[in-house]
Structure formats: C-alpha cells, structure tokens
C-alpha cells in the first residue's frame, strides 16, 4: 500500500504544490512564448510531457553507465534526439501549428525543466518512478500553460480553440477584444498573478524577505 501512495504523491505533487513553473521557476521561457492561443499551448504541453517522460526513462535506464563527468552532455544529447523526433512529427502532421511554434519546439532541448528533472530525479531513481515523476511534472507544466493560454485567447480574441465563444462587438455582440492580451506583457502579468495566487493558497512557498527594514526609532518626546 505504501508503495502505491508513493507513486501517487510523486505524480500529484508537481501539479500544484510543487509546480515546476510557479515554485521552481523552471521552463518559463516556453511557458510564456507559446500561450497566445490554446491550440499552441496544448501542442507544446503534449510535446514537452512526452519528451520529459521518455528522457527521464532513458536516463534512468542507463544511469549506472553514465560517467559522472560527462553526464550533462549525455543527457543533453538524449533530450535533443527526442526533440528532433517530436519536431519532425509535428512538421509532418501538424504543419500549421509547427510554424506557429517556430523555434520553440527546438528549445525544449534547453528547457531547464527537462534537464532539471533528469539531473535531480531520474539520475538517482529506477525507471518507473522516474517516468512517473517526469509525467507529473509535465502535467504541472501543462496545467499552467493551458490556463494562461486559455485566458489569453479568451480575453484577447474572445475565442477558445479558434471557436468564437464571446460575441464580438464588431459582429453585434458585447465583447471588445483586449489586444494587450495577445502581446508579450500580459503573459508576464498573468504568470505573476498566478504565482501570487498559488503562494497565497500555500503560504509555505513565500520567499523570506531579503532585507528587513530597520526598526524605526521611536521619536523621543
């Protein structure tokens, strides 16, 4: 029974409590760049989860054979090969989304999240837990991406997955699109607010203030 709860916590912990994006600041680059629409966010999430799970499994299988000194290069080559496969699949079957994602699929290679998980977890654990952990982290990342992507597409265009959800003012409805939502700054604001929300729900995650202001001397009467 104990083993099963272990697997369950490994899988569910990274979803919100240990979320890789909001708590560990890993893999933010792509989290912000591809979230202008829900479709690209979803494609990116799936690609990253697949790469992460497979990479963790592979690294974990050969973990006893990788020499300590060159382990980073070995891990990067494994990740890069998987990313090339994913990139080719996307180009072949989802050409339009692949163009929208531009270089960001290739950048999964240097996504700190992938290297962070293989380096911190998969290197020391058996293949099954490593893959479960990687899958959980992939899901946590996907959750943030889909949330931000959905919000940006809904308020930026009034659409979800390209279907009109809110009637536009131009077409006789009531909704005026917020074009700021489609630009870079809004992604930063949304993620900042998300971090604030998560940390208010789990106060243990707040960072200790770096400086404490000196106590003000009471004015002598």
């Amino acid at each position, binding site marked *: 029974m104990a083993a099963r709860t272990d697997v369950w916590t490994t899988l569910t912990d990274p979803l919100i409590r240990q979320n890789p994006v909001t708590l560990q600041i890993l893999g933010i680059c*792509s989290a912000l760049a591809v979230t202008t629409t829900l479709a690209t966010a979803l494609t990116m999430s799936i690609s990253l989860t697949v790469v992460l799970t497979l990479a963790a499994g592979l690294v974990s299988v050969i973990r006893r054979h990788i020499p300590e000194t060159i382990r980073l290069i070995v891990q990067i080559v494994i990740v890069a090969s998987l990313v090339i496969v994913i990139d080719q699949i996307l180009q072949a079957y989802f050409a339009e989304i692949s163009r929208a994602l531009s270089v960001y699929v290739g950048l999964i290679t240097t996504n700190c999240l992938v290297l962070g998980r293989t380096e911190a977890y998969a290197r020391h654990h058996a293949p099954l837990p490593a893959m479960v952990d990687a899958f959980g982290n992939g899901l946590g990342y996907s959750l943030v991406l889909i949330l931000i992507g959905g919000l940006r597409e809904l308020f930026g265009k009034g659409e979800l997955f390209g279907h009109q959800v809110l009637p536009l003012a131009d077409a006789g409805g009531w909704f005026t699109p917020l074009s700021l939502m489609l630009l870079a700054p809004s992604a930063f604001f949304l993620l900042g607010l998300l971090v604030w929300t998560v940390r208010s729900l789990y106060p243990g995650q*707040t960072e200790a203030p770096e400086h404490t202001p000196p106590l003000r001397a009471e004015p002598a009467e």
Partner: protein
Amino acid sequence: MTELWGLFLMAAFVDNMPLTLFLGLCTFLALSKRPEAAVGLGVAMTGVLSVTVPLNHLIYVGLLAPGAWAWAGLPDLDLSYLSLIAFIGVIAASVQFLEMILDRFFPAIHAAFGVFLPLLTVQCAILAGSLFMVERSYTLAQSAVFGLGSGVGFAVAVAMLAAIRTRLSYADLPAGLSGLGIAFVLAGLMSLGFASFAQMAAAQ
C-alpha cells in the same frame, strides 16, 4: 552598413530576447537579484552569443544545409535535422573553451563570472540565437551582428531588472507577491516599455 546597424538595433531592442521573445527567462529571473551578478551575466551572454551564432552559421552552411555536400557528389543530402544536436555541441564546446581561455589569461574576469559560464550551455536564448539565424537565413556578417545585438539587449534588460529589484527590496509587498511574483510584474512593465520600440520600428 546602415542595414547592419538596423539589424543590431532590432535584435537588441525591438526583438529583445527576454522581454519580447521570452527567451532565457530562467537565468533572467534567477540571477537578477543583485546588480553585480546581473552585469556579469549580461557580459557573459554577449560574449557567448556573438561567438556561437556566426560559428553555427559556418557549420550549418558548410555541413548541414540541404545541398552542402554537393561537392562530394551528394547534392540531395539534407542533414538539417541534425542541426539541433550540432548547435548544442558547438555551444557547449565554445562555453568550455571561453572558460578555459578566461581561466588561463584573465583569472580576475573568470573569478567574477563564477558559476554563470557553465550555466550558459543550457540557456535557451543562446540556442535560440542560432535557430533564428537558420530560420531567417542570415548571412555571416548578419549573424555576427545579430548575435552581438541579442547579447547586448539581454545585458541591458537584465541589468535594468536587477536595478529595479534592488530598489524594491525594502518595499512592503504582500507576502505572496514578494520575490518571484513581483519580478514577473516588473518584467511585464519593462516589456510594455520595450513594446514601444516595436511601435517605433513599425512607424518608420
């Protein structure tokens, strides 16, 4: 010449790596707590980017691009799918090389960089510089200018963010917002500022 200058300005400000294209954010946020560290990171980024982008350009054109092996009787060979692995290898090697040179000849600078240099291998902004170079098919001169410009843009942005964060360290923020949360909001505000460069470029 003016064309190259325009490309430099575009890479540094209009297409600013962290603030407009969201590249290299991990180090951008993690190392912007202290101005000294931020400046060190900015200089290292500029150095590595302006070396690796032209180098990767030579490798791509000479070895990987479709038709690069035509002289050897293999005109149909297209190795461009290998570019990701090749670029990562070049970046890792040049970071290592830069570190060795600095360690041997400029120990003071090497000590100032500390741990940042090896970290740059897995910096998405650096890999992205090379990938953009392929996607936009720059020439050798253009890719050198593009690498330099992107590095300078990154350095400016990270130094500014570090300055603002130091300034805010005494501010009385809500507990959940301090640290990472406020850094995101600041980056958003700076990104709004940098968006005005895009407007200026569009107006021309």
